[in-house]
């Protein structure tokens, strides 16, 4: 339904006082940013005062006012369009950390009208993703209108009948944005090159702009578009233009200091291992006070790696009253089942999540190496929390992924993420790991230190020293992994996993791989020391050993770093099933005490059967939607 939006406050212009005008001599005012005007004759002005921008005030009456086209958007980012406010007009054709208008990619589905099936069959991947509110040329309801930024022109009450205006978008932005004009009862699409009649020029026009897509490659389009309002004054002999630069809001990924609003987990009905995992996780989520609690997801193929097949983020633009308008973004992973089929679980991005103020996003290359496909799982995409280092500020943190020059995720996804520019990407080497995900060795929790957070890192050396100490104290025969078994499909017998401390210490392959892992993790830390300025006092060390698969490294004990941050004070970790000495699991005890020192309660989650022995852990089997910062002033970063 098209309607005039009344939620955006537009202060009526006091045209005579506020609008800038050129001098009656007709000199152009270039470079200062004020609108261009050409006066070729007709009545001269009455010599009104210059305004702050250097033009002259308009004077009214048919006796000879000079018209200057004046297009306005929320260039001062206060959520309104103010003709009285010179800051709204100053340098409006520029865009930087201090000023510039913003619009959103309108790729949500406010009416939840996008189809998910055709003739009872799932839509093909491309078709599923193609539908959103910007895919058509109409505004899809009241809620959809909220997603569009506004522009307005100052009325030209003296416009002669043969005056005509046009609006144009710069290239390449014109391919990625769409203008609507308010007419009658509502907004309708403005056709490129369409003429604005004098009647509308006299009243002033109201426009709305939507982005058709996010920035996917800033080398092709960087998110900026100039809207030019041109007026041919006809018999008035006046003409001119005004330009406003707008920028498309980037997609920002969430970090762990943003409180979790919901935790997601795949539900496999009738599976006791899934039930056990969900039961423990649910208790932890409740204890953490996550507002929407634990939410079950039902991918059609029972994909239990909930972390991997989607990532959450958001886009924002200023709203009235200092607020912001938010579209949550769910990104589907680029994992491929085959050359023609993306990972099935990722369909939930569109079939389940896409909706009102929730966008679904998908990006992938048609051809990707089978071996590198694991890097496209979102367990390999995390966000370092905000920090400042070496003179640079990262108020939204930085994306961190496992990637090397020879072993890397889908390049088009990397391009999409880096093209957002707000969270410059950092890469570390995860190629030595079997699954190669960044979450296998590193995570981030809130901490009461100058940084505001701490880096949690796997420490195989600590694990070994704990076991050595226990052995030296006479506990070498104490078993670990008690009651656990290794993977046996098709209801074959369970293979006991129980092993003693001394047996582990004597396992040459586990010891060798753990030593190598310790060195590789230290190399990862070197990157963070250099790029983030992390110091040892800001590191929380979590002990577990590694084993070898295909010559690569995998957690031998449950990878307790690979847990989920539920809140600032609650962390869900895999149950380590460590050796119990004096009634206590020594690995649980170590982790509990270490986190407790930071005010964090650790909840141990049973994940052995469905996750650990299948090469993943709690974080891999869960996902989170996190609260958007109250004001995400990405526009002030200068990026």
């Amino acid at each position: 339904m098209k309607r005039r939006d009344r939620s955006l406050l537009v202060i009526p212009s006091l045209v005579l006082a506020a609008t800038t005008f050129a001098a009656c001599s007709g000199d152009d005012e270039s470079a200062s940013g004020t609108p261009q005007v050409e006066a070729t004759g007709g009545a001269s002005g009455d010599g009104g005062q210059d305004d702050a921008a250097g033009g002259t005030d308009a004077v009214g009456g048919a006796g000879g006012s000079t018209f200057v086209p004046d297009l306005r958007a929320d260039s001062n980012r206060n959520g309104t369009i103010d003709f009285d406010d010179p800051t709204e007009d100053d340098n409006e054709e520029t865009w930087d950390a201090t000023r510039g208008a913003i619009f959103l990619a309108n790729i949500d589905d406010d009416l939840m009208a996008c189809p998910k099936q055709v003739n009872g069959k799932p839509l093909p991947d491309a078709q599923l993703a193609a539908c959103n509110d910007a895919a058509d040329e109409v505004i899809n309801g009241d809620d959809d209108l909220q997603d569009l930024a506004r522009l307005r022109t100052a009325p030209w009450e003296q416009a002669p009948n043969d005056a005509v205006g046009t609006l144009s978008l710069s290239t390449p932005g014109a391919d990625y944005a769409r203008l609507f004009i308010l007419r009658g009862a509502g907004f309708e699409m403005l056709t490129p090159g369409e003429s604005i009649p004098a009647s509308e020029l006299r009243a002033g026009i109201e426009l709305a702009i939507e982005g058709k897509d996010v920035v996917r490659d800033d080398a092709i389009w960087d998110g900026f578009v100039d809207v030019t309002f041109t007026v041919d004054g006809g018999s008035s002999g006046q003409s001119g233009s005004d330009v406003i630069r707008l920028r498309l809001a980037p997609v920002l990924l969430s970090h762990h200091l943003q409180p979790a609003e919901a935790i997601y987990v795949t539900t496999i009905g009738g599976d006791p291992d899934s039930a056990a995992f969900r039961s423990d996780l649910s208790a932890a989520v409740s204890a953490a006070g996550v507002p929407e609690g634990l939410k079950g997801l039902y991918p059609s193929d029972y994909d239990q790696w909930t972390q991997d097949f989607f990532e959450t983020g958001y886009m924002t633009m200023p709203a009235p009253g200092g607020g912001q308008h938010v579209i949550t973004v769910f990104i589907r992973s680029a994992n491929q089942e085959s050359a023609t089929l993306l990972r099935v679980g990722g369909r939930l991005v569109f079939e389940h999540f896409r909706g009102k103020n929730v966008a679904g996003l998908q990006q992938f290359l048609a051809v990707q190496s089978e071996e590198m496909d694991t890097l496209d799982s979102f367990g390999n995409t995390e966000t370092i929390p905000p920090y400042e280092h070496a003179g640079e500020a990262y108020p939204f943190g930085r994306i961190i992924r496992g990637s090397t020059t020879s072993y890397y995720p889908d390049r088009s996804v990397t391009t999409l993420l880096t093209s957002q520019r707000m969270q410059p990407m950092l890469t570390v080497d995860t190629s030595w790991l079997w699954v190669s995900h960044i979450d296998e060795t590193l995570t981030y929790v809130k901490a009461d230190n100058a940084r505001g957070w701490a880096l949690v890192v796997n420490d195989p050396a600590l694990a070994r020293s704990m076991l050595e100490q226990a052995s030296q104290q006479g506990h070498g025969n104490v078993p670990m992994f008690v009651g656990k078994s290794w993977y046996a499909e098709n209801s074959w017998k369970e293979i006991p996993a129980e092993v003693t401390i001394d047996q582990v210490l004597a396992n040459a392959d586990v010891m060798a791989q753990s030593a190598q892992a310790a060195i590789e993790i230290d190399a990862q830390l070197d990157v963070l020391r250099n790029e983030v300025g992390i110091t040892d006092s800001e590191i929380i060390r979590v002990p577990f050993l590694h084993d070898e698969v295909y010559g690569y490294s995998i957690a031998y004990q449950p990878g307790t770093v690979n847990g989920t941050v539920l809140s600032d004070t609650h962390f869900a970790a895999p149950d380590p099933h460590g050796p119990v000495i004096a009634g206590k699991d020594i690995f649980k005890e170590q982790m509990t005490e270490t986190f407790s020192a930071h005010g964090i309660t650790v909840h141990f989650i049973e994940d052995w059967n469905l996750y650990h022995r299948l090469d993943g852990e709690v974080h891999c089997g869960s996902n989170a939607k996190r609260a958007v910062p109250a004001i995400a002033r990405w526009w002030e970063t200068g990026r």
Partner: protein
Amino acid sequence: MKSSIMATGIVVLGLGLCAFASDAWAAGIMLQTVDLAPPARASLLSDIQQARAKHPSSFSDVSHARAVAEEAAKNYRGRYPSIAGYLKNLGPAALMPMLEVLAVKAPPQGAMTDAAWRALRVGLLEAVGSLRDPRAEPVLRAIVVQKPADEHELRAAAEALGRLGTDSAAATLIALARNAGPHQHAVVNGMGDCRRHKVAQALSAMLDQHPSQELAQGVVRSLGSVGNAWAWKTPVVASSGEEQATRMLAGKAALKAFVTFEGAVRAEAQKALLVIAHPDAAAWIAAERKQAQGELGNALDSLAGKLQSNPLLR
């Protein structure tokens, strides 16, 4: 008459079916039995027979690995499907069943997908290697010498052979590594698990041959593995009595690589020195530093600093 003809026919048919079945299973999944020298073949068949009598359930467990591999190929995490976790944990009683599948008789690939088939083959090799039983050596050597076309299978076989740690295993790997070719990298990788002084010598000598950056990186990584400080603390590796000599040689060779090469090889050499964690490494670096200037000097200073904070020694 008709019944005797029919009975004869049935017998012939049965013999034919048996023959067909045995023909289909005349080989293991990596070797044909004839690929083994007669004495080794006879010894293996005898061991398998004894194991079947003693641990019959292990043979069922190993035969189930096909189903495990097929399931893993449908739903796996990581680069490829892997069933090593299942096979490794069957324990020592599974050695002979696994060798039988590898080298004596097993169903062919049949309807198994390529991914599942490779998971089975690599899993068996990795599991056999983890047992470090010298009775596996003839089979592993024969597989390595044949140089399977799949690099992961060759690497797994080379590692498994290396883990035996015998003189003959080391000699086989050293000889194969000398020849350039597609197999070389996989064999060099496998040498890292053969923690013997002669292997450290061979790897060190390879670095003196001005290898390509990629090969040098693999050689250096294997040097680190050969000298791995924690591996040498385990009885099975320490039993050779060669710890001191091997780790010293590996460490010095890694340092030489650090000085000689740049870029990725130097980075790998740093990791190798840290993994080896030799107590004299700091002194070696200090000696090298005296002659080094400029960028190399700075790199050696940085290396010395890293050794001081070696995570293995915290």
